[in-house]
């Protein structure tokens, strides 16, 4: 179909829509989220959703006292597997980074980048050790064996999605941000948090 034909069709469709009117199907938050400053732009997960999930998780984590180490000091946390079980191509770091920053700022925990589910986040820790025995480098400045700190806890979780059609013909989508902080020595979950974000909008197309 060429541009001319498309233009004609477009104008006819626009005119038809204008005269028939249409229901308000722009995405809206549901439930407790109705007080949000801005209404969502999409039915997918957007920046505002990540911020809300991160803020709620951090508040709950710090309030709950899971990071208060008996006798003082800081816990070492490793990043576990965060499964994106939705239909959206999202970077889960958008959520995790905010939580990591808050944990560091609280002074109660540090995050290791040398141990991570799926491989170290920063390979530099291991790369510098390869310089042992290299006469070009001052050996006293190279990390000694036994200096890496193993993590005390692991932070992992899942982002889930449930989609359904509502009675009014709209589409409802709910995102569940579920996080767990596991104490690695005992295998016990010291903290768990869940943030649910619900949106309602047009059912014309898919949520991604």
């Amino acid at each position, binding site marked *: *179909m*060429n541009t001319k*034909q498309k233009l*004609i*069709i*477009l104008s*006819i*469709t626009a005119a*038809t829509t204008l005269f028939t009117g249409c229901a308000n199907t722009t995405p809206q938050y549901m439930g407790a989220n109705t007080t949000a400053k801005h209404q969502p732009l999409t039915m997918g997960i957007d920046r505002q959703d990540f911020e809300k999930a991160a803020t709620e998780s951090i508040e709950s984590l710090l309030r709950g006292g899971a990071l208060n180490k008996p006798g003082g000091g800081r816990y070492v946390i490793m990043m576990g597997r965060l*499964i*994106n*079980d*939705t*239909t*959206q*191509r999202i970077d889960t770091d958008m959520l995790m980074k905010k939580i990591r920053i808050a944990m560091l700022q609280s002074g109660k925990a540090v995050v290791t980048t040398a141990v991570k589910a799926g491989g170290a986040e920063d390979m530099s820790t291991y790369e510098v050790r390869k310089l042992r025995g290299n006469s070009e480098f001052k050996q006293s400045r190279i990390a000694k064996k036994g200096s890496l700190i193993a993590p005390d806890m692991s932070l992992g979780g899942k982002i889930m*999605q449930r*989609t359904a*059609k509502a009675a009014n013909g709209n589409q409802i989508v709910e995102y569940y941000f579920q996080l767990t902080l596991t104490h690695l020595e005992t295998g016990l979950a010291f903290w768990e948090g869940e943030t649910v974000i619900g949106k309602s909008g047009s*059912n*014309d*197309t*898919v*949520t*991604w």
Partner: protein
Amino acid sequence: MTKQFIASSLIASSLIFFSGCAAVSGHGGSLKKFNDDLSSGKCEYKFFDEKIKDEDDVILWGIQGGSMARNCLDYNKSNELFDKAELVYKEDVDKDGIVNNVGEGASSVFVNNNVNDYEGNVYEKVMLNTYKGFNFIALNDLSNARIEFNRALDRQRRAKEYFEKDIAKKAKENKGKKLDTKAAAAVYKKYGDVLNNFKAYPDFVNPFTTYSSGLFFLLDGDNSKARDLFKEAMLMEPSNKQIKSDYDLSEKLSSSLTSKNSKSYAWIIYENGKGMMEDEMRFDIPLFLVTSKVAYTGIALPKIKERAASYPFLEVNGKKTIMVANMDNVIKTEFKKKFPGIVTEAIISLTAKTIIQYQAKKKFGLFGGLAAAAYQGLTNKADVRSWTALPKNFQSVRVEITNKPIVIKDNNGKVISSITIPKNSNALIYIKSESPGNVKIHKTIFSKR
């Protein structure tokens, strides 16, 4: 008289000119060429890239090109082409519904549906995400594979409500139009064999998507989600031994203390033969028009036809593959559901063109009538577009991985491939065979989760 003839001819030819060649030639030729290229193992994507760049049937050539690239084990290219098609589904087609929009409706009536962009079938949307899932598996990108299988499942969920909504909308739209019921009856008589005598899947599901999603989640260590999906697939195919066996495994793993199985397995998915495709069918139907006199007029409609299978089954370490989904039946189910709409549209088009022809003859005489008849004849062309790279059916079998290689044989015992998998891993071996001798193998090793 000559002047009038020229005028009418000009109108007719300009209508065809502005509608493009597809109005007269249809798409049969380009589809045949694609099918031949796919069978011969061609791996060139220039044609698809150009079609997409020109926004000329992006969905059709995105899905066909995506299949070709997948066959060539070029998974990134395949996903790139599939993504282009998915974007149009999402931005245009989903919002349209199966009912043509205003402009498309007029084109269908006064020219034919070939001039409109291809909008695809609902099962094609589901299969698109399923294939993207398998492409990401082959690329060892399990995070993105998970997203695609979730999308395929969501597409499937939407399928039912989509049909309920759109068929009702279409029926409502056609209600006010005067339809020749005798003409419609003549059409249905010719389609008895296609529309009946098969097992329709309920609610437009494709058990393959549900089953293969279950398999993916099992291989990714999400045993309870896998169990739920296998359970759902079992409801679609209650007596299927392979689905039952995989359900039992997922059930065992979800209820055991460790999610890892001490045994390692390889799943062999076999995509058999060529799925049903559309072909044009022409025949005469009676039309009662402006006069009480019956006029037999030729109608061109799409009809789905079966194509050949490849090996009836594969034998893997002595175990035969079992059919988990009949794609032909998925295609037939949807064709049957959409058929009343196609017939109505074709008869309305035929009636309109015949009335124009009658009026042209009345107003411009014999030559006017001839020009209108020529126009009608030229534009009497069925829309036969569909995703022709889909198979006839999907089969599966699971074998335990031992120190010995996995030997895959055809139904006559001839070895197709022998594959060695490291003992402590699981594996997915995906085999597509359009015809005997034409075999493509995709292999992915999974570390146990």
